[in-house]
């Protein structure tokens, strides 16, 4: 076979393959795990006929993959579970602005990028949880109180390697400055009941087991335990109270899961449609009911489980700040000895 013949052969196969995948589709790189997004994506395909292809992985790895794939990256939409990573994607220059009046109207300004490169889709708060049998909610009020020596040996919190702790630190840096936040982190480390370990649910379990009185965790973890198939988890979660911090001033620390469109997207229209779909009624209710998150919209009711935690005042800080202060937060945690 001559070189030309081989070349023609390869070319025709390639064209054939490209032909197969050129039906209406959208390629999603998701830091949100498949279980927590797949059924919403399936619904999108049903409604629009647009096929959704999915890869899940941590946000940083996906951002790196998109950067390396460059112009030819198949990615159309990036989904993350944290605002800091959306900011990082924007900084990396891989996102494109979406000019959509639908998205602007539905999503409050604090929960989207000022330049419309990313959009928050669901909300969660990182709160102080307490063992109801040993702590009265009047004993603690603000995040700042976690550094109070009266809680010595009574706080369970996971590693500062976790993004949610980094985002909490980033918001404190914004509100109180780096120096005060470092002093706070030193106080928090001194109050820890144990070396940071495990996940958020482990902190909740440790509080009920008596290792600590307070646990720091995201709201949906407690809600997930309340709705669990496992009786022991439900029993533990029933003993935990939720304290909404800083209700007298700025409000509780919020974070979003969100989405952005990739700059090199070849399916930009489909990508926009998908992000709009995720902000529409069906998906927003789905986030609330199935994942126990708060809607970014004010007109979507909370799930029954979340209603048990009550109404609260949310911090209105623009979440871009969480990304901007992320590296500073990690350095500060390193200095404070927060493993």
């Amino acid at each position, binding site marked *: 076979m001559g070189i030309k013949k081989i070349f023609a052969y390869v*070319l025709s196969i390639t*064209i054939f393959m*490209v032909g197969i995948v050129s039906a209406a589709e959208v*390629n999603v790189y998701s830091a949100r*795990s*498949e*279980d*927590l997004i797949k059924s919403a994506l399936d619904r999108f395909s049903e409604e629009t006929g647009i096929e959704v*292809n*999915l*890869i*899940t*992985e*941590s946000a*940083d*790895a996906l951002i*790196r*993959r998109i950067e*390396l*794939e*460059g*112009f*030819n*990256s*198949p990615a159309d939409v990036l989904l993350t579970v944290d605002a800091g990573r959306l900011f990082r994607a924007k900084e990396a220059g891989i996102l494109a602005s979406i000019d959509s009046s639908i998205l602007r109207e539905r999503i409050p300004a604090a929960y989207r990028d000022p330049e419309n490169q990313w959009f928050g889709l669901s909300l969660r708060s990182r709160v102080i949880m307490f063992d109801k049998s040993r702590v009265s909610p009047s004993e603690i009020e603000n995040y700042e109180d976690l550094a109070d020596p009266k809680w010595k040996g009574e706080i369970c919190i*996971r*590693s*500062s*390697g976790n*993004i949610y702790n*980094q985002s909490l630190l980033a918001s404190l840096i914004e509100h109180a400055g780096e120096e005060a936040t470092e002093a706070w982190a030193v106080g928090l480390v001194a109050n820890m009941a*144990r*070396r*940071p*370990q*495990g*996940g*958020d*649910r*482990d902190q909740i*379990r*440790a509080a*009920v*087991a*008596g*290792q600590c009185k307070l646990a720091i965790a995201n709201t949906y*973890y407690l809600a*997930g335990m309340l709705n669990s*198939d*496992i009786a*022991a988890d439900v029993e*533990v979660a029933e003993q935990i109270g939720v304290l909404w911090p800083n209700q007298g001033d700025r409000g509780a620390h919020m974070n979003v899961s969100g989405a952005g469109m990739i700059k090199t997207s070849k399916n930009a229209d489909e990508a926009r449609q998908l992000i709009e779909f995720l902000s529409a009624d069906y998906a927003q209710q789905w986030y609330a009911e199935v994942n126990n998150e708060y809607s970014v919209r004010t007109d979507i009711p909370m799930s029954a489980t979340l209603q048990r935690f009550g109404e609260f005042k949310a911090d209105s800080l623009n979440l871009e700040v969480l990304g901007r202060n*992320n*590296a500073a*937060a*990690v*350095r500060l945690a*390193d*200095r404070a000895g927060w*493993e």
Partner: protein
Amino acid sequence: MRPWPLSLIALSLILATPIFVVLSSVFFPAGDIWTHLFETVLARYISNSFALMIGVSIGVLALGVLPAWLVTAYRFPGSKVFEWALLLPLAIPAYIIAYTYTGMLDVAGPLQSNLRDAFGWSYGEYWFPEIRSLGGAIAMLSLVFYPYVYLLARAAFAGQSGSVMEAARSLGCSQRSAFFRVALPLARPAIVVGLSICLMETLADYGTVQYFGISTFTTGIYRTWNGLGSTVAAAQLAALLLGFVFILVSIESWSRKQAQFFNTGSHSWPSPAVPIVGGRLFIAYLVCGIPVSLGFVVPLIQLSIWASITSDSIMTADFAGYLFNSLTLAAITSAAALILALFIAYGRRLYPTQLSSAAARVLSLGYALPGTVVAIGVLVPFAWLDNRVSAFMVARFDFNTGLLLSGTAFILVFAYLVRFLPIAMNTVDAGLTKIRPSMDEAGRSMGLGPMTILRRVHMPIMRGSLATALLLVFVDVLKELPATLLLRPFNFNTLAIRTYELANEERLADAAGPALTIVLASLIPVILLSRSLERAKDVPSVGEKP
């Protein structure tokens, strides 16, 4: 240069590109991050990693060497069962065993909760070992990695000529002192190979140490990348890690050179197994039973309990697809790894040069790199190549080829090879060094061609090693997570990914179903492996027959 050594070096260079990508990071500036690391966390990363390596060394030697000796040199009821059962923990991914033991032994787990309820204690009024600690991590990693030491030690003991042991005993050695004075020193090179595999696995582990909150080199690489946002400094940390591993690999190959033993007697037969009776039997059961029950049976029971609670919601129709993907990748990769390892090993044997052994040493570094680092190291050159081809095609033919290799199963298998070829190379090498050059010469003097020598002399002797290489890689691929996560094509899941996603959402009970399937799928090759070793044992491993 001849084509074989030339292609050997070319192959090594291609497979080593991810390692070069990591190493090249040292030429880029990382700003003030190193000052920060140095002042704050670097000492802890290093000391924890060292402590972990020392602890795991002690652990795997204790759990692996003695049982290997007991099942080869002694005979007792059940010793045949232990012979293969001791391999079973290989089937359990390290992070899975960490999750299961934490589920049981944690302060909020059933054991401590029941203790508190039964005795009316509250937390702090009693002592209980902390599972999520450095000691806990050492225990977890030792329990799943010791089979490497066991496997190599057992092969070495089984290959020792009975005449050596008889000589030892005729000089007044008891079976026990013959172990310490003859068998153990003879087996040392093999044990060191097993140990170095364990240590590389330890350095590459992320899941366990991350979950236990132990800051090591590996967690430090991730933290520097994700938290401090510096790809360069993260890669430099990985390069530093590679420096340590290179020292480790050099020590290992030096130690192997220091201790090259051949059985030289013309009469060679397996040493007769000594029966164990009475009180010693109890000790034998303890020594062989502890690794199997703690490393396999207990986690298996816990996983089964969890899986039985959640099976309805988890065992969906997609499940067969995950299993199929996992098995296919494992089969393709292990076959490719075996062929490449044979190619490299024979190349080095036929044309031994400094360059080819240096190339082999560089290749072996991949095993100690955390999977994500390997994955990015693979993606960098492939994406670059794809984009260059695409740009050329657009300019020349106005036709965009897109990403030809990135995002396909091909680069996934490539990444697996970077990571797991070393284990195949090590095992094949170990088999090949048992064949003395004089045996080839003898064959040739009898007028046999090279292919006939390969088939009639080498293959029977090597069969055990080849099966070991194939199946170790197979099981490793089944368990592999980080590279699969980053490099897989769209809509492509494996059992390991499914397990990880559920566990990562802190739904351990839901993760038990896929985790159990990984364990069961790995069981088949592990059992095949011990069968094939059983058969290979009939052939005197040194090759001489009276």
